[in-house]
């Protein structure tokens, strides 16, 4: 090691660290990513439990469950029967936690933080301080969202989309009181966190790439995180304004979203506002949000599939192109959530057109994944299983999206269980599969230990079965006309045929919960007791596997390695090993790709 490099390394490791600066207010991207992951795991457990609670009610309407009473108490589950208002709170907070806290904060926060500096060859994020703030805003907003479940008047309960006037008027339902206030504060903080994080990701990827790391040599994870961050920066502020106007309507007597309302016998003065304005503002974030959730998962899968198929990702440039296309299109499709809101039918037609266009880059991605598997040499790590699972759910859920994008068909399935089935498969399952793939794949990098493979297999197969078991039947319920967010269907004879199907769904949901216990055990046990990780366990090409297993500030002792090739030189002809790390210079006469 040259003396300069030695001095450099020293500068990065030399200062003393206290417990607080290392584990709590850390500015190291690797620690922050672990903080994001652990927080998200906690929130995911909460979100999952909430869903099992309301699934019990949906499977066995009005029956008493001791477990409901044990968790929700006599106030919200008297005699073990779920309260109607609590049912709506559970649905609302489940959605909010899963969409924002697990699949946005958890997925992007964890893997963007961990991988961006490591895969582009940077010592850390562009701003370590903003990065730390990003986590702590996320943490505080998570705490507020979680604690809102314990409010006396109940948590927010107007659905995760919190349409006013329902959410604006405390008289409309108990959850629109204090619960809604907490929800809004939590979301405002969450948006701040997301913006701080996203800005940092964009700046870091654009400016801090190591020598030789051209944009066309970036791993697809980086491209996915970059585009995700750009989408986030452009869309979250719009949600912020929507939230701000809602807060004003709630507290200052303004009428942005309110007009001509009589609520609980009280005649309100507000006139001239429109809740449709809120719907536009909300979905201008809300739809891109779907891709904020999905793109990182697709990026992770691209990386995992290529590595474990021991084969270059097929159509690298097309994969980038489709990411960019999806990112762009995601901003001009929001109106498909509003086909039956009374919006101009012509505008509806425009949104049908733009929405269905998204199917093209999605199809390209799917076919490219399939071709990557074709004649591959697939190593079945748990991460690979989840990635293949993602391709399956991406297809199953994406196809039903074609139905929902078609305004004429949407008339009949809008806001029914068909929608619930659709987005849980395409966004919920796909994104969570991507997240699991990421956890299994980069666990050695995060914690320096290996997760147990056998338990990973068990976790995957149970999760796949439970996932499809829960969400596939929902399409049939929806097509029969069953609306979502209903506490009970017993008053409608037309749904009598679906009682047993609803019970089956609940049983699968419980199985899914058990599967996650396997994961949690494996995860926490491996952090402390897992086998020690080698330097490059998956024989991967990307830069993160050249950093030492023991974390250090600055990531690389000595100089940052230089990059000479794209990250997908797997099984390249003429080379004995089936992988060539990015740091290996091109042999004379060797073509890049």
């Amino acid at each position: 090691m040259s003396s300069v490099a030695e001095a450099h390394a020293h500068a990065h490791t030399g200062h003393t660290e206290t417990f607080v600066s290392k584990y709590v207010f850390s500015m190291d991207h690797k620690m922050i990513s672990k903080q994001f992951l652990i927080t998200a795991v906690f929130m995911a457990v909460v979100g999952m439990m909430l869903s099992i609670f309301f699934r019990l009610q949906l499977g066995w309407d009005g029956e008493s469950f001791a477990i409901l009473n044990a968790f929700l108490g006599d106030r919200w589950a008297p005699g073990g029967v779920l309260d109607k208002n609590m049912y709506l709170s559970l649905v609302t907070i489940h959605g909010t936690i899963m969409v924002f806290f697990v699949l946005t904060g958890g997925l992007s926060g964890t893997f963007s933080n961990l991988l961006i500096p490591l895969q582009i060859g940077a010592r850390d994020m562009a701003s370590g301080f903003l990065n730390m703030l990003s986590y702590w805003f996320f943490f505080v907003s998570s705490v507020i969202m979680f604690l809102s479940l314990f409010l006396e008047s109940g948590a927010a309960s107007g659905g995760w989309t919190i349409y006013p006037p329902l959410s604006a008027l405390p008289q409309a339902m108990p959850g629109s009181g204090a619960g809604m206030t907490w929800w809004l504060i939590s979301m405002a903080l969450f948006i701040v966190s997301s913006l701080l994080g996203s800005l940092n990701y964009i700046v870091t990827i654009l400016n801090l790439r190591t020598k030789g790391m051209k944009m066309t040599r970036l791993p697809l994870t980086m491209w996915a995180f970059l585009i995700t961050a750009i989408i986030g920066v452009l869309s979250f502020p719009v949600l912020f304004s929507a939230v701000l106007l809602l807060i004003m309507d709630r507290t200052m007597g303004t009428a942005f979203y309110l007009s001509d309302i009589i609520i609980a016998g009280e005649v309100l003065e507000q006139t001239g506002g429109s809740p449709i304005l809120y719907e536009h503002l909300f979905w201008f974030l809300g739809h891109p949000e779907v891709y904020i959730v999905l793109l990182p998962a697709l990026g992770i899968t691209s990386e995992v599939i290529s590595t474990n198929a021991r084969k270059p990702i097929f159509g690298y440039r097309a994969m980038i192109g489709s990411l960019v296309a999806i990112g762009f299109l995601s901003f001009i499709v929001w109106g498909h959530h509003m086909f039956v809101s009374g919006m101009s039918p012509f505008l509806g037609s425009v949104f049908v057109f733009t929405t269905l266009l998204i199917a093209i880059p999605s199809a390209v991605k799917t076919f490219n994944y399939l071709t990557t598997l074709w004649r591959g040499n697939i190593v079945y790590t748990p991460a690979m299983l989840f990635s293949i699972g993602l391709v399956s759910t991406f297809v199953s859920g994406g196809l039903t999206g074609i139905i929902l994008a078609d305004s004429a068909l949407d008339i009949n399935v809008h806001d029914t269980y068909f929608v619930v089935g659709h987005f849980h498969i395409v966004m919920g399952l796909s994104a969570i599969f991507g997240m699991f793939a990421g956890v299994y794949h980069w666990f050695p990098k995060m914690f320096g230990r290996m997760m147990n493979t056998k338990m990973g297999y068990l976790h995957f197969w149970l999760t796949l079965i439970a996932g499809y078991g829960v969400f596939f039947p929902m399409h049939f319920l929806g097509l029969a006309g069953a609306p979502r967010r209903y506490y009970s269907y017993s008053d409608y004879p037309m749904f009598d045929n679906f009682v047993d199907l609803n019970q089956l769904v609940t049983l699968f949901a419980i199985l899914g919960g058990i599967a996650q216990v396997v994961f949690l055990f494996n995860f926490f046990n491996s952090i402390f007791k897992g086998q020690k990780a080698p330097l490059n366990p998956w024989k991967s090409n990307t830069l993160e596997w050249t950093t030492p297993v023991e974390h250090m500030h600055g990531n690389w002792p000595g100089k940052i390695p230089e990059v000479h090739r794209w990250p997908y030189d797997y099984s390249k002809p003429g080379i004995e090993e089936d992988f060539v790390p990015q740091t290996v210079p091109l042999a004379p006469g060797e073509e890049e790709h």
Partner: protein
Amino acid sequence: MTRIFVVLIVALAVIALAQLMRIYQLSSKVRNKKEEEISDTDNRLNASLMLVSLFSFFGFVIWQIVSYGPYMLPEAASEHGADIDQLFSFNWALLFTVFFAVHTVLFVFAYKYHYRPGTKAYYYPHNNKLEFIWTIVPSVVLAGVIIFGLITWNKIQKATGDGAITIELYSKQFDWTARYSGTDNQLGKANYLLVSGTNPLGIISDHSIAERLAEMEESIDSKERKLQSILPDDQADEIEHSIKTTQRLRARVLDIQTKNAGLKSGMDDKVVKGEFHIPVGTEVEFLFRSQDVIHSAYMPHFRLQMNSIPGDVTRFVMKPTITTSEMRLKLNNPDFNYVLMCNKVCGAAHYNMQMDVIVDSPEDYKKWLDEQKPFIAETINEEQIETKQLADN
């Protein structure tokens, strides 16, 4: 007690798992097994499971289609509903083809190309021709989907409602009210400021305005009387605030009065609760209004859904094609009824905000409508009763 049991079971399960893990870890140490090295057995096992999941997944899907398919999309009972169902069929054919094809390819590849030691994968980074093909083919197919979809959509939306029967569906937490125009074939104007116990939809008429004004003045008077007595400051403030609010609202009602003096179109409107009737084979124009939060009128049998929004009027035009009694015969279910549900979460009783819809033959419809009393008459009747009661006292 249950709580202790649950905690105990969970704790025991975790301990059992931990012990199993320890055994596993110790034994893998002995066998020198490394987690990152996936054994041939494991690769083959997972590859075979991929094949198994192909068949079991398809089996599961087909089982659902066979057992629940008959209940999905109940027979369409409206003219445009049949068009929508046709569009559905076209899309199903396409979707299921792609679904089965892609999944077959995915799982078969996943099975076939599992790791074989000593072999190398085929280095195949890109093929522009291939990528071009699978950009163009989906584009062409989607063009078809879009065109067919938009033709249907425009056909549904183009219905003008000229010569149709206009029915207003009024929503509030947690019920629906229907309003029919009377002999003048015109729904009277309405304003939410006029809503009262006797005028649930706020229909504008001299009578309803006068009634409301009297009510407001009375409320202001009584509050002012209250202010005369000695009150804590905060209560007095509250009452003053409420007087000012009522005065501002009263000014708005006076404004309605000057603009709509002598308006009669609402007097003969018919206000109906519980169930509402529509005639078969006649175009019906629904207008939707909401009193409090967003609701959504959803009638799945007619393939109809439209949000109902406070401060706005939305509409949907449709023509029912099958009467309730015909549908009962078809389904062999004498209790069958078409239903109007709320499909936008609106509060605790959202799930039970429903109203029966009866499709009659034109004759039955006329008979039923004639039986419904005009709403003003009803109010006046009630008033007469009240006056009588006062006189009795």
